[in-house]
């Protein structure tokens, strides 16, 4: 026996083979063509538990994490404080090792927690209905675009150029399958026609700044297109939710809500819409009902949208909701609550503005996009114009033990996108400023 996870002993196996009247385990694989049997595998030798711990600990130590070094990267993945209680709830075996909730009678814990998640997403975004979760924010956006095509019957997509480039690429990948043209337009020049299914706006946008969402709402609806908004969820702790400024569909990356950075995944996409579009939504929905004894229970609902009923006529092929990540977001929002989330958002806002102000005062550095008028205010991310190529500035920062921002010089000349959250202390920000002061043209 090799594996601590297989309970059968050799004696068990002999007894079982005897009972089913088969001479050997090998005979159970006779349906496999002989020339393909027992191909031989080349893999590293097995490791015992302590050896595996040592190996993986060493691998992890080859990464320089954001715990070790101050980090000012955001751009779609954000480091926030996660209360200890979140992970303690998520890793409970009865949540973590449960199957997908197709049998409601043995899945009430998962189903009720999904219902909580959906309710909290509705409150946060100001929308009517939310689903159980998507793979991540980018794929949720791609699905939102396909949904807009189904609803409007139109076959062009419009995205603002200020939407995260990585999200734009995912939308293009999905759109390719349906041969849907994707038009990218700047916020000032957004001109939609009667051919566009939707206008996609990120708020704050990829470069951190707040779009004029009311004007864009009119632009979308005047053309009869759906208005798809991609907000950053922590920002909704203080800023107006998309439901208040006309959004038809809201998608977002849920990672900032209680999920660790984890090198990019697993994350969870938030997906919410107006009530009238519920039947065109992709993914799972959980509803509340009464059982035969009159007790409240929770079930997957409107399943005629889903692939196990509708097969090729389903609204999407989604049959997961990144449940443990959605659960983390649920516990996080309950733990933070009304006061906590607002405070986290305000801490991010003040610290980011402190950092921006200090950096802008350095010789050679400026904030090319910042100002007081509409479209020039930011939340926790902002673009700094550097006196040297951002790539070189980042290399110099790394030598000083700091992970700098994202090089966005392709979008803004000399631009570096910096993110400051509540996890960055004043000492870290001051260290960044001091380091930048020493990096000159």
């Amino acid at each position, binding site marked *: 026996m090799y594996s601590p996870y297989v309970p059968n002993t050799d004696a068990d196996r002999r007894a079982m083979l005897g009972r089913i009247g088969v001479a050997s*385990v090998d005979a159970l694989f006779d349906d496999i063509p002989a020339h393909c049997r027992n191909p031989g595998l080349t893999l590293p030798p097995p490791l015992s538990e302590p050896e595996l711990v040592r190996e993986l600990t060493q691998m992890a130590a080859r990464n320089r994490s954001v715990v070790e070094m101050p980090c000012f990267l955001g751009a779609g993945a954000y480091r926030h404080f996660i209360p200890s209680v979140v992970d303690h709830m998520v890793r409970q075996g009865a949540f973590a090792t449960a199957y997908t909730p197709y049998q409601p009678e043995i899945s009430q814990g998962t189903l009720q927690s999904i219902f909580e998640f959906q309710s909290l997403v509705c409150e946060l975004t100001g929308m009517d209905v939310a689903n159980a979760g998507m793979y991540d924010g980018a794929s949720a956006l791609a699905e939102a675009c396909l949904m807009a095509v189904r609803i409007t019957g139109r076959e062009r997509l419009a995205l603002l150029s200020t939407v995260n480039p990585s999200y734009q690429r995912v939308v293009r990948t999905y759109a390719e399958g349906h041969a849907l043209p994707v038009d990218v337009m700047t916020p000032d020049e957004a001109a939609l026609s009667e051919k566009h299914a939707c206008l996609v706006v990120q708020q704050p946008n990829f470069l951190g700044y707040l779009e004029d969402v009311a004007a864009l709402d009119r632009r979308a609806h005047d053309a009869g297109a759906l208005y798809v908004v991609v907000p950053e969820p922590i920002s909704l702790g203080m800023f107006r939710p998309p439901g208040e400024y006309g959004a038809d569909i809201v998608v977002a990356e849920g990672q900032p809500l209680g999920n660790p950075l984890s090198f990019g995944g697993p994350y969870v996409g938030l997906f919410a819409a107006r009530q009238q579009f519920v039947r065109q939504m992709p993914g799972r929905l959980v509803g509340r009902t009464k059982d035969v004894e009159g007790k409240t229970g929770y079930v997957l609902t409107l399943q005629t949208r889903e692939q196990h009923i509708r097969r090729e006529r389903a609204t999407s092929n989604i049959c997961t909701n990144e449940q443990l990540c959605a659960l983390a977001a649920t516990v996080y929002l309950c733990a933070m609550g009304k006061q906590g989330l607002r405070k986290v958002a305000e801490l991010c806002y003040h610290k980011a503005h402190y950092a921006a102000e200090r950096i802008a005062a350095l010789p050679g550095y400026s904030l090319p996009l910042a100002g007081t008028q509409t479209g020039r205010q930011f939340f926790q991310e902002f673009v700094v114009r550097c006196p040297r190529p951002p790539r070189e500035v980042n290399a110099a920062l790394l030598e000083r033990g700091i992970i700098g921002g994202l090089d966005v010089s392709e979008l803004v000349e000399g631009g570096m996108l910096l993110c400051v959250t509540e996890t960055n202390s004043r000492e870290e920000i001051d260290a960044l400023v001091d380091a930048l002061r020493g990096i000159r043209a």
Partner: protein
Amino acid sequence: MSDGERRDIGSKLSFDRSRPGRTAVTLPDCDVPLAAMPPPSLLRDDLPLPEMSQPEIVRYFTNLACLNYSVDTGFYPLGSCTMKYNPKLHEDLARLPGFAQAHPLQPAETVQGALALMHDLQSFLAEITGMEATSLGPAAGAHGELTSILMIRAFLESRGESRRTVLVPDSAHGTNLASVSTAGFRALSIASDARGNTDLAALAEALDDDVAALMLTLPNTLGLFDQNIVEISAIVHAKGAQLYCDGANLNALLGQAKIGDLGFDVVQMNLHKTFSTPHGGGGPGAGPVAVKGHLAPFLPSPVVARDAGKGYLVEEPERSIGKMGAFHGNFGVMVRAYAYIRSLGVAGLREVSENAVLNANY
């Protein structure tokens, strides 16, 4: 929570348990000078979130968990989806700060451990399936299905062909058909014969010039290894179509046969089935795709490569279909699957398939 409350836990949600003024966390005061607030027109008036104390949250969610049946509570003999024990150790490993606290956009030289793990996992999965290249990008099995169909589309288009039909056996899981439609293709159902194998005559009849691929689950959703696989592969390829394996049931073949040797061009795997990562009551899983050489240029980003000078780095294949997610896929799930393969080795993986098939037959 009293017994009565526990019995009717469903009647009270977090909002019903909320009381103004309660809180579950403490946060530091602001350590920088306050900035001017944005104009009130940009700000929200109310933030309707629940207010709960920490013990209430712990009791509420712990009691919810108790309502679930799970692998940790008992035997889970579910067809169509491999359910197996999820090693506790792997939960700890995925949470090592070097893994859990790494930002996906960090410079490659600061995340060599994570990239090395991805690179090695790509190789292990290619070796296990008998394929030549792997992308770990897709976030779930159905996401891997969609990825694969988009790759087949791009491959065929590179040869100047625009085929639009994908054949799927009538025993297939509904996601196969939904993935085909999501990719912009038409799904056509193929009958099974009396033994549950693909009906060869029906297949030959359906295979016209518009067929891009046949999607086959092996062993199939009825639990049977299709005895006609060699003939199927020959017929499909003779007609210029691709053979796609839904690897949902790969568990039964570990070390017994390689998907690539059986004639398949592409396979999607479910790390949360075959490679022991938790189902989580609906994810997160991961659905890597492995392909033969002719499809490798079309793999989605990221593919992790090893460069003699620079070490490990994220690459995008030359004719990539693009990106299926914002970053590098479900890395935390990859750590668990990597740990599983490293702890079992070849003999351990074979032991898994042998015992799974023996148990099922018994």
